[in-house]
């Protein structure tokens, strides 16, 4: 009886340490998106390059594609940019951009100077479409399937690990 009672604080302590350890592995800034496995919010926006033309999420039906939210003022997006160019070269998943609250001239300049990984870019001047997608820290990327359902979201630059380990396998499964 006695030793058992004495073990209770130890057991509680171990449980506490276990919770703290789990907490350490998690990034509180990564808020799970309620949009996973939900239809990608519809939008119609002018294109970045050709202002007169529009781009809609609906016209992507039937394709597995990646929507990448970026801006020239976003430092992490610039880190991600050369990686995106690499990924785009592989041709595995078409990358479409959502240029978020940016200056059109600056965005075009960046694409001209550093290369353009995007098939197309939508120009979200006031950031309303980004809010519909629950964006809170660019860059953010959404993998959307043929039926227009968001299957995966990544917050922050897509590292080669994420591209190889998560996006490519999921995209090939969705393409089957």
């Amino acid at each position, binding site marked *: 009886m006695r030793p058992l009672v004495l073990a209770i604080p130890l057991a509680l302590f171990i449980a506490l340490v276990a919770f703290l350890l789990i907490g350490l592995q998690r990034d509180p800034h990564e*808020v799970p998106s309620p949009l996973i496995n939900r239809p990608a919010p519809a939008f119609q926006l002018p294109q970045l390059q050709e202002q007169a033309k529009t781009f809609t999420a609906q016209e992507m039906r039937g394709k597995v594609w990646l929507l990448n939210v970026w801006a020239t003022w976003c430092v992490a997006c610039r880190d991600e940019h050369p990686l995106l160019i690499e990924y785009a070269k592989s041709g595995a998943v078409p990358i479409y951009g959502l240029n978020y609250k940016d200056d059109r001239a600056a965005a075009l300049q960046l694409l001209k100077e550093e290369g353009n990984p995007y098939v197309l870019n939508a120009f979200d001047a*006031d950031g309303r479409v980004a809010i519909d*997608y629950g964006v809170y820290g660019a860059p953010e990327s959404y993998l959307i399937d043929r039926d227009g359902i968001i299957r995966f979201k990544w917050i922050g630059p897509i590292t080669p690990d994420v591209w190889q380990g998560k996006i490519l396998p999921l995209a090939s499964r969705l393409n089957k």
Partner: protein
Amino acid sequence: MKRIAWLLAILFSLAPATAIAGVAQPNEDPQIEARMKALTEQLRCLVCQNETLADSQAPLAEDLRTQIREQMKAGRSDQEIIAFLTQRYGNFVRYRPPLIPKTYLLWFGPFVLLPVCIVVLYRYLGRRKKLIQDKPLTAGERKQAEDLLRG
């Protein structure tokens, strides 16, 4: 003393600057602004997570406040606006978590824990009480105590 006066002077000169931040737009409808304030104080800014949407200076918070203001003018209820935000950002935007199965432990946990602790404490104190035994003083002890009291 002079140094303290200086520090105080600096402190008070800073106060107006912080007070200006985050005030309501002066040209707006005061009724809507009051609703805005009450609602956005219950909502979390996702960029700087320990700030409310009312206080945050992040550009996203400003955009969200603009949208909330528009929706209020369009006659949407607070509930509808909270739904608009949770559909996009999840329940994490709410400082007051909703009552759903996932949060039962959070809401009811303390009420379960309290009676458990009371029972444990009661039993523990009961057991200790049994250990206390009243023994009357012997004549010698009594005399000693009286001596001490008399000094």
